[in-house]
């Protein structure tokens, strides 16, 4: 870093901003991303149009077979199942998260708000696998839930709580709930209480205020929270593996199989691209919704 030539003007306005070399500070990170992010993604884009070799690896021979195969009802079913699981997870996170974020955001004391929020985030900062494992301990046939229910005399035989869709959704909700609450809280906290009070003074009922005032104003936060939960849920593979027992697989498990077990990298790449395109569609919808809500707020 020898680019310390003094600037020519020498006026009082000069500073590090006018240090010519300092624009180069952008370079290392973007070069890093060009090599270790963009190139690898372009690589799987390209290799999804090639054939798998007889012993794994890639044979450089153009084909659409991987995408044709990915649209096979069997694999399309896996993608659809993943979308359903991710969607249900997102809805449950919202139903739990919105009242919670609302309660925290409407506490008058900022210290109380901060404390309640930290308490929501704290479990999230422990290892994801450990949090998933906790549900195995709770839900297995000799687990805490079954033992407690038997102890209370509510059931005779243990319930099958683990290794089904319920356990998968439970694990995902537990894993990603704070990602819903944080953006909702950020949006609700910015909302002036006067707006709701004005609606109340004008005779609107609380539910109507929620529907016509609060929800539209915090829409960007809702959309952000939903995206934050949906995206990692859709591509997740440890949770369906550990809590779903690997019986019904999600698209993440399928990609995992192609890369580490089936050794069909081109097909795995095609699946990863389909996952990415679902998320792209989602982000486009998100930006549309945000633009729409901004227009509403400008009109108001």
């Amino acid at each position, binding site marked *: 870093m020898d680019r*310390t030539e003094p600037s020519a003007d020498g006026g*009082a306005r000069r*500073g*590090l*901003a006018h240090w010519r070399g*300092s624009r180069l*500070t*952008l370079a*290392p*990170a973007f070069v*890093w*991303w060009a090599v*270790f*992010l963009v190139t*690898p*993604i372009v*690589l*799987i884009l390209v*290799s999804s149009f090639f054939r798998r070799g007889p012993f794994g690896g890639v044979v450089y021979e153009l084909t659409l077979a991987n995408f044709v195969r990915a649209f096979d009802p069997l694999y399309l079913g896996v993608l659809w199942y993943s979308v359903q699981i991710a969607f249900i997870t997102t809805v449950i996170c919202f139903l*739990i998260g919105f*009242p*919670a974020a609302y*309660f925290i955001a409407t506490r008058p004391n900022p210290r109380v708000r901060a404390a*309640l929020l930290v*308490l*929501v985030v*704290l*479990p999230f*900062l*422990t*290892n994801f*696998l*450990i949090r*998933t*494992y*906790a549900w*195995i*301990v*709770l839900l*297995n046939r*000799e687990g*805490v839930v079954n*033992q407690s229910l038997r102890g209370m005399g509510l059931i005779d035989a243990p319930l099958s709580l683990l290794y089904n869709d319920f356990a998968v959704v439970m694990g995902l909700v*537990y894993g990603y709930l704070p990602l819903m609450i944080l953006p909702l809280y950020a949006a609700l906290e910015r909302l002036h209480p006067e707006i709701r009070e004005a609606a*109340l003074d004008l005779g609107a*009922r*609380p539910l109507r205020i929620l529907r016509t005032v609060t929800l539209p104003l915090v829409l960007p936060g809702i959309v952000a929270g939903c995206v934050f939960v949906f995206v*990692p849920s859709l591509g997740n*593979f*440890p949770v369906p*593996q*550990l809590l779903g027992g690997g019986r019904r697989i999600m698209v993440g498990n399928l*990609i*995992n199989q192609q*890369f580490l077990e089936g050794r069909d*990298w081109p097909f*795995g790449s095609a699946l*990863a691209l389909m*996952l*990415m395109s679902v998320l792209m569609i989602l982000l486009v919808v998100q930006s549309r919704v945000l633009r729409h809500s901004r227009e509403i707020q400008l009109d108001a």
Partner: protein
Amino acid sequence: MRESRAGTARWLRIHMTLLYAFLYLPLVVLVVLSFNDAQRAVVSWRGFTTRWYGAVFENPELLGALGTTMVIAAMATTISVALGTLLALGLERHTRSSVLDSAVYFPLLVPDIVLGIALLSFYSLIRLPLGAGSIVLAHSVWGIAFAAAIVRTRLRGFDRSIEEASLDLGVREVPTFFRITLPVILPGIVSAALVVFTLSVDEFVIAYFTAGRTVTFPIQVYSMIRFGVTPEINAVATLLLGFSMVLIVVALLVNRGRTTSDPRPPEGATG
């Protein structure tokens, strides 16, 4: 009207109680069972023991994996914080480009499994041997983005006139950076390092695809969970919980310093 408001408030309080129970009971169960003197991780209490902690500290595979993870996290943090800080400086001071601004978030939008397989394909193409090194390169991809975002928030409240004063007094740009700019943004850099380190220690999916035969701590925990439910995992979980709590408290204290302290460098820093 008032009645329905009070009703809503009571309903919300019940909701919050249930929410915190949902968040914490599973973890409390793990901690309690880690002290249970039973062969299997069942709920019935068979007496207090710390032998599972002894088992953890005598498990060479687990300790080896922990060591590997710490080295990987330290290296990924170093790269991420160095490049992320430079990036934050560049973005905050030299760009009006919204394209660049949003490009910074792209690494965080790519699903981890996609990044994992993309890097695995890339490494095999360039014949880079898989192991701790390849995980460090992978973790830095999102580490840089996190570090840049955190350092940027600190740069936003920066009083540029103190840099200009230093330059006007004839100090060159690089010494000015190290004596003025760096001490002021240091809390941001420390929080960035803590966040990236914690995330790297916890990261499983990308490491799983790019590790080759190397076993990181999350990978070891994953195979232990798949192998079976044992009280030893409960002890590991409790230790991890404790570790995370300590890091969080440190991060909160650093953050508190940020909001209350004067945003000017300490006395000696201007030398």
